[in-house]
């Protein structure tokens, strides 16, 4: 050890350092700490309890285990994000089992596992449930490969389970019996979310579970739970902070609605409300007593019209986050603008993404209304069928604090519908005015100018999604100049090898690059792979495309070398 360093270190024993460092939780901070000195690196690795792996192939379980001996909680993300939209073939990879088998040896006291876009088999779930005695928190989002049998294993064997959060997974639903597998002795549950499972669970088992788990604070049931049943659950769990209801409509009401209304009124801690499937003007008012306290309202599965929404929002003064369906229309968004001055996040999803005849949805008018009434807005996801540059410019000016701006004009390559010009100036205004912008998704007709703006102004941009845009290689070259860029995902753009190779020096500072249906060739990829051995340059072969084109390219930095579990259609160059 360097004698100078030793002097400094003796003032600060390792135990103290570790104690201090244990208070530092974010992985970015910890990453910085580990770079200070060798002894800080060691103190940090011994005191780390949670590890976040943004790309499961960037590192191997063995490397993680070697560096961090005392991990209690792991978060792993697997497939590229475009797999959510069917752009990644099945069997691509991201199996969690290799991780679990290493963890079973090294981290027998693992308590928490949070997975996103990983393949999880029933065997993996059973392994998890049986090998990790103190296991408490399981969160699976957008995963696939398992069935409700795997959930049975978790419910049966995890004696101290506090969290079971199953969201939007490609799950094989073999019935709701898994819920009945929670033993009577299990009283530790704090979070239970099975909203996206379709099968029916035994209500009797659910009711008993809810009533004996006194610390339950998050309960999100699925659509099969009726209003009557919900009422009973709320009576058992008035302490809930987050509630996802089942269906919000029934034909025969067994009791007066006042009872249901009272049940909601008694939930004094309720901050988040979701579910509300099939909600109609008849039943929606029962939630009014709880609305004043709500900070997050997810109406993205309720086909509400503007009037219904306006009536509801009149009660929701404290709302920070709101998710909607575009059935509310521009008039509904006007109500958002007038009722929710504290709004920070707005997501508007299309009710009929593939059938524009049914429902126009929301337009630039609604977007502007919200921006006028909600100056604190910093996160938006907005699906629309028409947009103008001037509207986006206005939104940028009204809400300069945007960190996440995801605008999806649903027809690929559609220009400003009034001026017929590309949407360059709109997005340009976003990056010029909203200096904090961190995540951007662009759409509509865009030339290289948009990317010139992004490259020039988006100093804090970390994630960029591009589809059906750009005019030449320059477009991609521009955005590779963003200093903080970490994730770049591109589809159906005219970017070729020159563009790909312009990022030669950049990709190692990024998590990953995805390019599909662009003009990149195998040769271009080979050049990249050869020059940058610390990157995995993977091409997903398409049966239909010819051999010289690289139809889908996934590039990411890694310390684990080329994948050893790649299927035959994934070529690592």
């Amino acid at each position, binding site marked *: 050890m360097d004698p100078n360093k030793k002097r400094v270190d003796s003032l600060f024993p390792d135990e103290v350092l570790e104690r201090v460092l244990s208070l530092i939780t974010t992985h970015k901070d910890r990453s910085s700490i580990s770079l200070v000195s060798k002894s800080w690196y060691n103190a940090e690795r011994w005191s780390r309890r949670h590890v976040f792996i943004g790309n499961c192939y960037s590192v191997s379980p063995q490397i993680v285990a070697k560096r961090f001996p005392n991990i209690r909680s792991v978060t792993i993300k697997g497939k590229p994000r*475009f797999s*959510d*939209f*069917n*752009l990644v073939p*099945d069997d691509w990879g991201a199996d969690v089992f290799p991780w679990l088998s290493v963890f079973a040896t090294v981290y027998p006291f693992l308590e928490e596992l949070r997975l996103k876009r990983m393949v999880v088999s029933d065997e993996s779930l059973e392994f998890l449930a049986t090998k990790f005695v103190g296991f408490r928190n399981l969160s699976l989002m*957008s995963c*696939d490969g398992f069935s409700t049998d795997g959930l049975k294993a978790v419910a049966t064997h995890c004696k101290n389970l506090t969290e079971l959060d199953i969201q*939007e997974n*490609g799950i094989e639903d073999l019935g709701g019996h898994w819920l009945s597998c929670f033993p009577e002795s299990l009283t530790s549950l704090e979070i239970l979310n099975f909203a*996206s499972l379709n099968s029916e669970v035994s209500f009797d088992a659910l009711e008993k579970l809810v009533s004996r788990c006194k610390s339950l604070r998050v309960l999100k049931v699925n659509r099969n739970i009726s209003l009557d049943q919900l009422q009973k659950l709320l009576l058992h769990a008035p302490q809930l902070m987050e509630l996802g209801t089942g269906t919000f*409509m*029934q*034909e025969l009401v067994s009791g007066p609605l006042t009872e249901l209304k009272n049940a909601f009124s008694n939930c004094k801690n309720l901050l988040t409300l979701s579910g509300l*499937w*099939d909600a*109609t*003007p*008849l039943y929606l008012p029962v939630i009014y007593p709880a609305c004043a306290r709500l900070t997050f309202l997810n109406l*993205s*599965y309720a*086909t509400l*019209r503007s009037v219904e929404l306006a009536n509801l929002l009149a009660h929701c003064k404290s709302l920070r986050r709101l998710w909607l369906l575009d*059935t509310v229309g521009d008039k509904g968004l006007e109500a958002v603008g007038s009722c929710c001055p504290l709004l920070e996040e707005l997501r508007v*999803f*299309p*009710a*009929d*993404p*593939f*059938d*524009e*005849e*049914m*429902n126009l949805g929301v337009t630039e008018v609604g977007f502007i209304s919200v921006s006028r009434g909600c100056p604190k807005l910093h996160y938006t996801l907005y*699906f629309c069928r028409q947009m103008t540059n001037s509207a986006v410019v206005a939104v940028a000016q009204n809400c300069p604090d945007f960190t996440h701006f995801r605008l*999806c004009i*649903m*027809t*690929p*390559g*559609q*220009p400003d519908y009034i001026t*017929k010009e590309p949407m360059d100036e709109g997005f340009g205004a976003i990056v010029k005015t909203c200096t904090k912008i961190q995540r951007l998704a662009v759409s509509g*007709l865009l030339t290289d100018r948009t990317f010139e703006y992004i490259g020039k102004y988006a100093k804090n941009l970390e994630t960029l*999604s591009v*589809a*059906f*845009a*750009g005019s030449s290689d320059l477009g991609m070259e521009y955005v590779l100049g963003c200093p903080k860029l970490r994730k770049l995902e591109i*589809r*159906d*753009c*005219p970017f070729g090898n020159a563009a790909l190779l312009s990022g030669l020096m950049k990709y190692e500072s990024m998590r990953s690059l995805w390019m599909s*249906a*662009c*003009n990149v060739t195998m040769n271009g990829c080979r050049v990249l792979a050869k020059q940058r051995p610390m990157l995995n340059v993977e091409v997903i072969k398409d*049966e*239909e*495309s010819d051999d010289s084109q690289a139809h889908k390219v996934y590039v990411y930095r890694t310390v684990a070398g080329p994948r050893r579990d790649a299927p035959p259609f994934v070529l690592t160059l």
Partner: protein
Amino acid sequence: MSVPLEHDYIGLSDASRSSVESSNISSDSETNNVLNLKATELSLGLPGFSKNFEENGCCTKFEPKNFMLGAKRGFSDVNLDVNGGFEKVQGLKGDLVDGVVKVGEEKKKDAVPSAKAQVVGWPPIRSFRKNTMATNVSKNGDAREGSSGSGGCLYVKVSMDGAPYLRKIDLKVYHNYAELSKALEKMFSCFTLGQCTSNGVRGREGLSESNLKDLLHGSECVLTYEDKDGDWMLVGDVPWEMFIDSCKRLRIMKGSEAIGLAPRSVDKGKNRN
């Protein structure tokens, strides 16, 4: 994985028709398209029919594209690209650079509103949401197009081949197939072609599902419905409750066209994530 259906534009020319038959689609929808095309051909022949086919009264703008849109209403899953400006379908090697440039040049929005080809993974919506919204549409029937949308009624459109306009009925009002059949007969009796409705329907209180099936199969007209998966089925095959749960719209077809309609099968061949 949910794979969007893609079809070429069903035009009135032979060239388009052959491209429908050769396109790479599942058998259910292929049958549907063939039927749809035939229906189109027949319907064109009747005076005054084509103008009024569009319920929303776009009758002044009659042209083949609008007409196809009307036909399209029967198969809301199918989206057809009329302009051909952007055609990117799964499994086909698209000329994407040209495709992107073309869209800008052709200024798609200037044309009559057209259906769009479904591009894989676009718009970027997760499968769970896509599947859920599909179920939502069927639960509401056509409730969103003007009726109350409450749980008390289930309005569906009823069309009859050869009739100049559509009707709307509330399925919840009826309790079995007999009542439904009776009501439809009354409603469409003025448009009866040949021996479409049988005299025997009147006064048949205890009509069983099988009797109704026999009756309809034997006659010139066939009552069909579109279920929540977008497939056209014969009315009467499934228990009444199941029928009203999945029926999105009704269509009284000429018996000859109903050949090839699949009986309800367990495996519909649809893939979902």
